[in-house]
């Protein structure tokens, strides 16, 4: 595939292949780079979640991987964006997209499925299936101008998925979905993966990622800072709980106050403790500190979850 700016985006062959990116940068005019030297490889059939705080470069990375915008520099190998018969093999849903407001949701979805290369009958059948799965049945035949934000989000997903792409790229797809629709979307994406479809998702919904993704890529300030399977990432920080205690007044002594299994990680402000004793250690530690004269301002408990992995790698908060 030829794209402007002299950046090479290669077709990987007839069969959908891996996405490979090397040295990817993307720079907005007059701004710091949104992507700053990203190397990655995503295998066929893999479901990858891109996770990072707001303005970390997630959406830009997704658009580059979907072939919608060329990188400022670097190389991307995309799998088979279009078949020889002209069918589009990439499904993309951004956070907000325009629609034909006077037409119904179903008509919009059928149009985009046809635009992607499906015959009308196939488009209608696939749209109907996805409308049902994503809980859009009641609203499907109303004009989009009457849709709420949540309903528009569901429609976007139907439009991204109905042409059954080989590569599905979704930006924050769980926004506006209830639990049933979230489960349905995870089911659809896992099914695509089972059929060797590749899925790349950016999401803030960390609780859903272990169920959805094979692999997580943490992105921060335009760089991939760490990545791996959920179990590997959680394993990298152990099963400990971190307790951060800020003081109004610090105690004179900090050592030898805590029970076995709890230790001081950082003697700064806040005081950072690590414990294998779970939440029960919080009360114990606070009591011990108060006993030596501390006045506690705040206590933050950080379980060993994905947000904590990100925080330990970058020192920044995921939900900042």
């Amino acid at each position, binding site marked *: 595939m030829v794209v402007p700016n002299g950046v090479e985006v290669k077709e990987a062959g007839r069969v959908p292949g891996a996405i490979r990116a090397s040295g990817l940068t993307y720079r907005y005019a007059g701004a710091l780079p949104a992507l700053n030297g990203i190397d990655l490889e995503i295998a066929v059939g893999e479901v990858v979640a891109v996770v990072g705080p707001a303005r970390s470069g997630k959406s830009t990375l997704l658009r580059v991987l979907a072939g919608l915008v060329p990188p400022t520099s670097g190389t991307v190998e995309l799998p088979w964006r279009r078949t020889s018969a002209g069918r589009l093999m990439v499904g993309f849903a951004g*956070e907000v997209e325009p629609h034909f407001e006077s037409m119904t949701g179903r008509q919009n979805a059928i149009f985009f499925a046809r635009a992607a290369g499906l015959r009308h009958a196939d488009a209608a059948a696939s749209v109907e299936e996805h409308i049902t799965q994503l809980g859009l049945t009641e609203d499907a035949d109303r004009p989009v101008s009457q849709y709420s934000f949540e309903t528009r989000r569901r429609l976007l997903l139907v439009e991204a998925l109905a042409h059954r792409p080989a590569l599905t790229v979704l930006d924050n797809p769980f926004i506006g979905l209830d639990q049933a629709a979230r489960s349905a979307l995870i089911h659809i994406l896992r099914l695509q993966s089972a059929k060797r479809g590749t899925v790349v998702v950016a999401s803030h919904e960390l609780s859903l990622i272990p169920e959805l993704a094979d692999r997580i890529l943490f992105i921060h300030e335009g760089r991939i800072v760490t990545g791996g399977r959920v179990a590997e990432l959680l394993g990298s920080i152990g099963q400990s709980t971190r307790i951060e205690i800020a003081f109004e007044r610090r105690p004179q002594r900090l050592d030898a106050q805590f029970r076995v299994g709890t230790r001081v990680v950082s003697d700064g402000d806040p005081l950072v403790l690590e414990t294998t004793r779970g939440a029960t250690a919080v009360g114990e530690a606070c009591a011990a500190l108060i006993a030596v004269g501390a006045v506690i301002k705040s206590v933050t408990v950080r379980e060993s979850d994905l947000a904590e992995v990100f925080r330990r790698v970058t020192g920044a908060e995921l939900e900042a």
Partner: protein
Amino acid sequence: MTSAVWSLQWRLALTRKRIFILNVVVPLTLVMLIATGAVPPRAAAGVYVVLFSAFAVFGSSLPLRWDGQRGMSARVVRGGVGPASYLLQRAAAGAALDTLQLTPSLVLATAAAGATPAATAGTLLALAGTVWVSGLFGTLIAAASRSITETALFSAVSVPLVAHMSGVFRTPAPGSPSALLESASPFRALHEALLQMTVRGPSTGGVALLIWAILLPGLVWVLGAPLHGALGRVTGGGLEGA
């Protein structure tokens, strides 16, 4: 190549019934006022040419610019339709719809002039060709402008200018540069066809119209990507949110 955009334009037009009816009634009312009034045939033919071509140019340029600015054009192309195909399907559907909506006006004008069915059919053919070319002018205008108001301005300026070059407002001296320009102008065929019904005259504009009707879509086909890119947010979806 999918014909999804062609179908879409028809569906959109038929969904907006009120606008569809207005598009028939408004030119029909104007034509009725002229056809039933004491307007000299030459002046009437000129007004009809400007009316019909303006109808097609504005009907093409403004919605295209609007869809470009709100990211809809970019989304459709991102969804799998080639940029040139998108522009040409829009123009083709627009020309077919314009012809359909202007046919009652044209039939009224020809009936008032006492034209034969054959002359009416010929004029209808010239109308179809003219609105096709005008719609493609509208595409170029939408791509050349940077806002809706600029699109309206360029459309408003270009229609009388091309009509003037087509000899609608004056008869150039034979052999003059103006006469040469007129012979190559796209609106001349419709003007001549309308005049033929009443004052008789030469009928040589068909070739020029045919050439325009072939060359302009070719130009749009070749320049499809940059023309589409000039319509607005080619990346769509707002990269600024990344």
